[in-house]
């Protein structure tokens, strides 16, 4: 069975990571673009949120798809990390990285942080289970509401700790995308031979745009640009 052959090989596992990673890259681009409607006021943002909810089964198909992609991505990362650890049982006393980027070296632990962030983010804005309010709550939006997405965002990002966590997590997303968006394409063998194979234009643009778009919202709320 070809699927088993792939699953059993390190290259196949890496390809599963690449495909699920690319699915998630497409998702974060869309998610970021949708979120930017926060800058257009409560009417636009809440209408967009209501539209997403109105899609019913489609929304659940998308959610389950994203969940499956995330689970596979994390599972493969875990398995490959175990393989990698076993591949060098005795480490060097001294090893000097020559060309590897900060992004490539933070994929594992940055990825763990992003997983923690995703869990928190869902409990925060989707279910409202964990919703730390600011020391001086917004008079207009005092608590979590399932219908007022705009208000939830304004209320949530008045808390400096929440803003800090989001800003730090997005820095790691920037790094994760800078390496991941580029390396997925190479892992899948979809790249053309290049005189400078470590050069990555498209994934730099994706990483920076996604980072700016996502970071803009908590920062804008915190400094009162969005109120």
């Amino acid at each position, binding site marked *: 069975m070809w699927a088993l052959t792939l699953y059993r090989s390190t290259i196949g596992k890496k390809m599963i990571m690449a495909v699920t990673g690319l699915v998630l890259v497409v998702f974060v681009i869309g998610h970021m673009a949708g979120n930017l409607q926060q800058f257009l006021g409560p009417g636009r943002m809440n209408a967009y949120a209501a539209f997403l909810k109105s899609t019913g089964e489609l929304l659940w198909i998308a959610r389950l798809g994203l969940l499956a992609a995330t689970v596979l991505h994390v599972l493969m990362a875990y398995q490959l990390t175990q393989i990698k650890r076993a591949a060098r049982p005795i480490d060097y006393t001294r090893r000097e990285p020559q060309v590897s980027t900060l992004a490539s070296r933070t994929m594992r632990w940055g990825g763990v942080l992003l997983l923690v962030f995703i869990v928190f983010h869902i409990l925060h804005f989707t279910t409202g289970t964990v919703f730390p309010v600011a020391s001086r709550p917004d008079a207009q939006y005092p608590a979590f509401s399932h219908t007022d997405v705009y208000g939830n965002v304004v209320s949530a990002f008045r808390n400096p700790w929440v803003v800090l966590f989001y800003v730090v997590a997005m820095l790691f997303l920037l790094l994760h995308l800078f390496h991941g968006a580029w390396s997925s394409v190479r892992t*899948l063998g979809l790249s053309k031979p290049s005189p400078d194979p470590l050069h990555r234009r498209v994934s730099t643009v994706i990483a920076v745009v996604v980072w700016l778009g996502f970071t803009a919202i908590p920062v804008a709320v915190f400094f009162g640009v969005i109120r």
Partner: protein
Amino acid sequence: MNLTLQVWRQPGPEADGGLKEYQASDISPDMSFLEMLDVVNERLIEAGDLPIAFDHDCREGICGSCGMMINGVAHGPSKATATCQLHMRSFRDGDTIVIEPWRARAFPVIRDLVVNRGALDRIIAAGGFISAPTGSAQDANAIPVSKQDSDAAMDAAACIGCGACVAACPNGSASLFTGAKISHLGLLPQGQPERFRRALNMVTQMDLENFGHCTLFGECQEACPKQISIDVISRMNRDFLRAAVTAPSDRAASGGDG
């Protein structure tokens, strides 16, 4: 030049090893790194100690025998240079140089800086060959090969199998080596009959040898004395994917039970 060496000494595969300090005095900057070690070894022998064991053969950068981690960099500080072609002028008087063997589960230490790279040979044996008719030599240029393909194949064929890619890889992956071997044969018409089975078998052997996976750090390409590009890894993955999805099972290939 006077240098301080910290060299990994390990009497045998099962023995414990450790870094030991040696003074390398009156070293000429025109010596190669291996000649410097020869001088140190001669003095060790004169003093009645065991010399530092290290692999070497041609000493002109083409055999792939030599190789060690020098100050944390595979083959030392010079780019596109095997250890034998590294000269002492790359160091400064008074430097401390840490010398360690390649470290990977697939490369067990035999003694000091000598590791067993048989795993790379077994990857080659799993598919690094072509079928060629023997007995009747063909006309030399009977099979046309495009310039691009012949250049790319020659670039991949430059691999000397020294193992620096594995040594430099944070994951201990042999992807650059295996990718180079798969590309060098797979790019040429002579390598087509076994192209996909080769990719499947060599990658399977690579995994069996307990090498790590590729995460595209790019360290292998930088460490490679022959400057082989990580493009060969993309090509290996492409061939492996196609092989895994389309390769007929052995039973079908042998014509079944009939």
